[in-house]
């Protein structure tokens, strides 16, 4: 479920980005991600391709996990977020979650 990839962004080309594909609906914390984070194995990309549902508990875990990552200086990004989950992110409007989706930190946002 995890693999290492070089970042496409040249500015972080030296850093490895671990890929983690969510196995399905996100309804609770994911131990494997927590372990990766705890191991400090570098930046992490969460692939939401197979995640078509997210619960309140899942949202809360994402928010808390992103906080942990930030404190460790680890960058987390989300990719392939499905529209139904992206709408949840939009309605919930959690800054850190939207940041992981690539929302610019400053400047006009939508």
């Amino acid at each position, binding site marked *: 479920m995890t693999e290492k990839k070089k970042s496409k962004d040249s500015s972080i080309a030296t850093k490895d980005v671990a890929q983690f594909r969510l196995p399905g609906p996100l309804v609770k914390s994911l131990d494997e991600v927590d372990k990766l984070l705890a191991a400090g194995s570098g930046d992490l990309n969460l692939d939401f391709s197979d995640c078509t549902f997210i619960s309140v508990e899942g949202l809360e875990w994402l928010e808390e996990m992103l906080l942990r990552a930030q404190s460790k200086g680890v960058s987390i990004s989300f990719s392939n977020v499905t529209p139904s989950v992206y709408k*949840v992110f939009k309605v919930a409007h959690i800054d850190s979650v939207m940041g992981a989706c690539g929302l610019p930190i400053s400047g006009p946002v939508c």
Partner: protein
Amino acid sequence: MTTAVKDNDTSLMERVNHLTRQARLAAAVFTQYSQEDVDRIVKAMTAAAIENVEKLARAACDETRMGLFEDKMLKNFVASEFHYHQIKDKKTVGIIREFPEDNMVEIAEPVGVILALSPVTNPTSTVIFKAMAAAKTRNSIIFSPHLMAADASNMAARVVYEAAIAAGAPKGFIGWVEKSSRLRRETELMMVHPEVDLIFATGGTGMVKAACSSGKPVLGVGSGNTPVYVHKSTNVRQAAMDIIISKTFDNGTECPSEQTLVVDREIAESLIEQFKEYGCHDCNEEETAKITETIIDARTGGMNYRMVGQPANLIAEKAGITVPPETKIILCEMKGDLRGNKLAVEKLMPVLSYVVVDSVEEGLNRALDINYGGGTGHTAGIFSEDEDVIEQFGTFINAGRIIVNSPTSIGGLGGIYNNLNTTLSFGCGTGGGNITTDNVGIKNLLNYKRVPRRKHFTLSFQTTKNIYINPGSIDHLRNIKTKRAFVVTSRSAARRGHLSMVLERLPQDCRVDVFSEVCEEPEWHTIEAALQVMKQSQPDTVIALGGGSVLDASKVMRLFHDYPDLKLQEIAFNFLDFRHRMAEFPKGVKTQLVAIPTTSGTGSEVTPFAVLKDSKSQRKLSLIDETLLPTVAIIDANLTKTLPRDITADTAFDALTHALEALVSTVASDYTDGLAFEAMRLIFEALPEVLKNPTNVVWRHKLHNASCLAGMAIGNASVGVNHALAHSLGGHYDVPHGRANGVFLVSTLEYNAQIPHKFMVQSCYPLWVADEKYARAAQFLGLDEDGKLAAVGKGEKPHKGNIKQLNLALRRAIYDLSAQCGQPMSIAELGISQEDFAAAMPDLVRGAFEDMAVKTNPAVPLFEDIKDLFINAYPPRQRP
């Protein structure tokens, strides 16, 4: 319970943030739920509420010490069972409504986080009701209960929340503020919190007002003051029983309950006797004064809140009146002007004021006094068997619910006595400072996303039914069934011998009247003059013999002869879209119209158009309707043989413009395209030959046909900016219409072939294809690159690479045809001085801009575009 906040939490704001954040996350997660998901959740909530109706009713009574336990149970049933029955099959997710006729659907979008205020009078039923409505619509809801009922309200919230969670609802979608001394402050903070999307306020006037001042969208429910008119036609026994049922319901705490009865004198005594018989107490004047003092707060003028929901005997006891303990209602007659009577206010208790009236008018006026005395928009009631009185009452009284021959309190709830939507929140409309008069429910807790599909209007093709087309076809007049014919023509037609050709061929026994006063650009007074003659002759047939002016005038004469009451101004409105036009034409005409064109240009014999000049404004009035279509058209080229050369060329260029403009019109169709192509081809072929040999009937015939085909094309596809320019120029300088058209043709073809500055707004024109269509025309004509007729590339589909070349070839061909015919190609050639032209420019531009012809042009001609087109058309042209 993650959503419950305790008083000992760190700070008020933190509690508010926590509650709203939980609700926000739940609302976000709720967006993913399907209809099946929410229906399962609502069902579970309903079952839990029904299981707990008694417990919750007991809790409400114990905490508030208001109302009746048994009635509170009934309210809990209404809020759960009745409410569920009403909403269970309603769609609230995805597409919830379809409008096939409008090609549109509505898709539901939750409103988000709702802050719900619940009242002391219905602390549990309101919570059950609102929580179920929120779940059904996938919203989160935070309850802010009344301080005096907080424990009962929160118990109800907990019961339905736990059931919902067990059924799969998102965690935290129901929240509540725990009872504390700072409950009110916490609610105020929540009202302005950014995470709250909507306030659903049912409660005391103060809280509702605070909600309305929050700046948030509010479903506020105003206070009531229900007047009930008891008309003399009613069944007194039924009225008394229903009113008792209603006013005693939960000891009168329901806001739609009766507050003042307006009773016809004829039945007043029997009604009061009936009340007494059923256990009510009718106060004398002294007792009424005591009751007033007890239940009305002298400071505010409103009801004494300590008496709300108390039983009648207790209120009487407080007032120092002795009544039997089982007394149902205390009745107090209001004498004199009730507008100053202290009892004429809302009294949420079993005290009912009444006033006796002597007529329906007085009854309606007194009911209006109560209605507008603190309960505008809320509820009213009437007992009557007279439908007229009921209708009058409904018309005059301003109330969201006007309950007929039923108890107003339980009637207002909906579902038991009528088919109103079940609710515990009564919208009062603007009269009560609310946004709705609805029985508020799930429909008010959704955003409605309308998804209209593009309109595709049905295009039709209409033209004159019978067209006789060969030279000599004027003989068809011999077969016309007519006893009274009215021939409309011009003096020149008489001179050219056309009139006698017609008269000779009409049946012997036909009475014929001739009107030959139609001149160029006919005005209304000409039509009026003809109508005077027609009034006398009463023709069954109008025969129009002449050019476009005669034909247009005849169409209008026929229409107004058949419909003498028609007003010209009412059918000559300008319009943006034919389908939405304001003008209303009659359906069908009785008198037949035979159109015999003597020029080859306008095609009026097959169009539903007529143009008249308005004598007052000097503007042209365009009439468009199928009732203007002639019944018969006779296209006999023999009538054009004597047409002078200049008129032949002018009118032929009019027809050519028709073909070119119909081709690129925004409402063009395959039908009109075919006609336009063939009309063009015939003109290019026949016009030079006709000018060389004007009496050659074969070429005249081709040109005459071209005019008719182009007429059919514009009759269905209309014209464009070239006509707008020509109308304006022609009107200003008295230039013949066809000639005016000719001077702009090369310019407008170039203009329309460029990507427009502004695309035309037209639903049935999804692709801008003007340049492609001109290219096709060039191909159809068989033009080579230089615009010469060479049959090159005929039949091939234009492609990007050659469209510009083909457009240029078409413009060159038109230039060459004009030159060959000696037709002016610029405004300067019309003899108009540059100074005069410059001075007239503002009027010319405005005239063209306002012309209806531009509405079907493939590009929106902007003011500046029109000005440029005029300027570019002034100097003598070079070959493109």
